[in-house]
């Protein structure tokens, strides 16, 4: 009986042996990657996930007002607060004041309803003396306690998961009726700021393309010896400290700075009409374009380098003008480079923090600065996390597009 299965020299079926060998190889490759993967997951992916989870979990209220939370759970939304609710409130307030957690509770509600902080802290001081019937005595303490908006905010904060920080991040506020509605015009900040961030990033990306394209083309068409010298001019800024470059733009562009002084000195502008190029959008755009330009030039260059010169020659020999050749033959071949550079610059621009903080003034700051503000000044970490999650969502979407267009394993530097 002939054995139709191919066998290895020591008699094992070849298919199984190959499978085993490839499984070993896969395992080996995986073991090489595992230490780093574990490192990145533990020190990067998980912490960021945990931080983002703060945007939906804020237990400052629910952990410190247990009886009221129980009442909210027992009674569906829309129930008028009854005597039991006020009794629970009074008991929780007394307790929170004694435990010194009333401030956390107050801060949490004050995020949703401005001006309620002192409502809680002063109620905490008096809560011990409250007597039944609680509904009357609590409202007598401050009529605000009877308002639906306060109860809506408390119900909202008593849930384990909350959307109110995302609502705030989308410029939606609790209205007097106790539902989330679009905030009045003069309180809308974040969506506009997101819009500005995207718009400024788009402008910077466009400028980078405008400036980067000719330079990349020149570098790609020069002989190697010359182009690597010129390449140093591109790489030097790339390697120079970001803070150094930002500082020097401050030196160059401020109102008493070099550019304005030179223009005044040459008599081109008068002393009163100095250009305001710093501490505004113009400053942010100029400095960011400069800082991100190499990220556009390098991918463009690596694509242009691979375009054979014979294509353009063929087009010319077939009678196309140089402009037609450029437009119909050369540019289409550089589209992958434009895509790669454009998305890279855009992704980096959207998350910029340092440069806008230093040169942006009032009109040139971006959403990142607002995240930092809530992290470090207002200490509203949940709102910071919500804003960060929205920003991250936008960036990951772009990352996905980048992967589709270029493939992340094709990313090249210098």
């Amino acid at each position, binding site marked *: 009986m002939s054995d139709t299965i191919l066998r290895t020299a020591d008699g094992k079926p070849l298919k199984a042996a190959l499978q085993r060998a490839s499984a070993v190889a896969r395992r080996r490759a995986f073991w090489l990657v595992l230490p780093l993967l574990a490192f990145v997951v533990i020190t990067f992916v998980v912490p960021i996930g945990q931080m983002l989870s703060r945007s939906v979990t804020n237990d400052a209220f629910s952990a410190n007002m247990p009886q009221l939370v129980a009442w909210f759970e027992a009674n569906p939304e829309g129930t008028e607060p009854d005597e039991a609710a006020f009794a629970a409130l009074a008991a929780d307030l007394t307790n929170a004041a004694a435990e010194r957690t009333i401030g956390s509770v107050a801060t949490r509600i004050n995020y949703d309803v401005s001006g309620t902080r002192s409502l809680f802290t002063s109620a905490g001081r008096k809560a011990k003396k409250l007597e039944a019937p609680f509904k009357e005595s609590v409202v007598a303490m401050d009529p605000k306690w009877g308002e639906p908006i306060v109860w809506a905010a408390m119900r909202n904060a008593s849930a384990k998961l909350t959307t109110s920080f995302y609502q705030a991040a989308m410029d939606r506020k609790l209205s007097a009726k106790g539902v989330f509605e679009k905030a009045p015009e003069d309180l809308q900040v974040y969506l506009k700021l997101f819009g500005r961030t995207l718009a400024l990033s788009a402008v910077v990306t466009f400028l980078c393309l405008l400036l980067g394209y000719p330079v990349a083309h020149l570098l790609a068409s020069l002989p190697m010896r010359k182009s690597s010298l010129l390449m140093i001019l591109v790489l030097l800024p790339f390697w120079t400290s970001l803070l150094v470059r930002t500082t020097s733009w401050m030196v160059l562009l*401020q109102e008493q700075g070099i550019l304005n002084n030179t223009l005044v000195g040459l008599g081109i502008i008068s002393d009163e009409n100095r250009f305001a190029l710093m501490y505004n959008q113009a400053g942010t755009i100029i400095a960011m374009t400069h800082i991100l330009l190499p990220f556009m030039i390098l991918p463009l260059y690596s694509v242009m380098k691979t375009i054979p010169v014979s294509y353009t020659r063929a087009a010319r020999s077939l009678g196309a003008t140089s402009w037609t050749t450029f437009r119909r033959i050369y540019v289409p071949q550089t589209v992958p480079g434009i895509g790669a550079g454009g998305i890279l610059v855009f992704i980096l621009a959207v998350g910029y923090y340092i440069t806008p903080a230093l040169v942006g003034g009032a009109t040139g700051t971006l959403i990142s600065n607002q995240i930092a503000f809530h992290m470090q000044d207002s*200490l509203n970490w949940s709102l910071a996390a919500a804003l960060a999650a929205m920003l991250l969502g936008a960036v990951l979407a772009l990352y996905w597009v980048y992967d589709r267009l270029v493939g992340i394993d094709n990313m090249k530097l210098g």
Partner: protein
Amino acid sequence: MKLKTVLLATALTSAAYAAQAAELTVMSWGGAYETSQVEAYNKPFAASKGVTVNMVAADNPATPIAAQVEANNVTVDVADVELSDAVRLCDEGKLEVIDHAALPAGADGTPATEDFVAGALVSECAVANIVWSTVVAYDNTKVSGAASIADFFDTAKIPGKRGLRKGAKANLEMALMADGVPASEVYATLSTPEGVDRAFAKLDTIKADVVWWEAGAQPPQLLADGEVVMSTAYNGRIFNAAVAENKPFTILWDGQIMDFDLFVIPKGAPNKDLAMEYIAYATSAQALADQAKYISYGPSRKSSAPLVGLYQDGKTEMGPHMPTSPEALKNALTNDFEFWADRDVELSEKFNAWLLK
């Protein structure tokens, strides 16, 4: 025999010293302000107690404190924070309670609770050490005739750029005072929507001419660079630039806004008892007066005032440079922490939205 005794004594004292040689970590704001605290509080306290006092700086010490208490991992024993933060952190249970009655009596024997100026002990978790203020300062080589806070908002009378802190606090109050609201009615006015609109309307009149600053050291720099001709600023920074660096800066005390800086102990501080001793020492009448030798922030005790002497250069009398001097107090506002604790979120958003317009 004698040698033996000496050795033994040395061994004993060093053992005792080692047992005592605890460390205390104090967190403050850096810069000239921190230096003044190191000189007036830390060095003498460390010498008298035989302990090491570490000073660490933060942009705003309230932030790391809140994070450390939240994470249940406190390394700071004493922190120097602003009043609104002290009140807020205290309400949130993030600070230890300080027994105000245990603080030393004033230089003239007045009990501590009477000796501190009004508002300095308003939070049961904090003790104020200085009074500082936000003032308008100008370059006197470029500006003449500035007499009142209204002139700061009058670019027709005094042309040139203005520096303002990028935030709602202090700006809204100054705008109202410039618009003719008396200091005593500022917060009542600001509590109404019309008052807020009025303040923003006043800010609108100079919005196009404003350079916004964020860190306390920026206003003197902006004035020195000629980027602005007038700016709001912290009075101590302007004093330093004017007296220590001979810059031609003048402070306009009209419409100043006074505030406290306070010492607090974060909940769970590693050396709570020593921290208490430090605060008692640092807020004694003499230590507070000594601090004024290095920076022009006013001591928070009444009995310190007569003890305030000359600046460290040995010739500048500090009294007139204090925000609490009679000249400076003519039209002054005290920051209302309750108001800001309640309305900060809303007004900051409004301010940010206004900036975006």
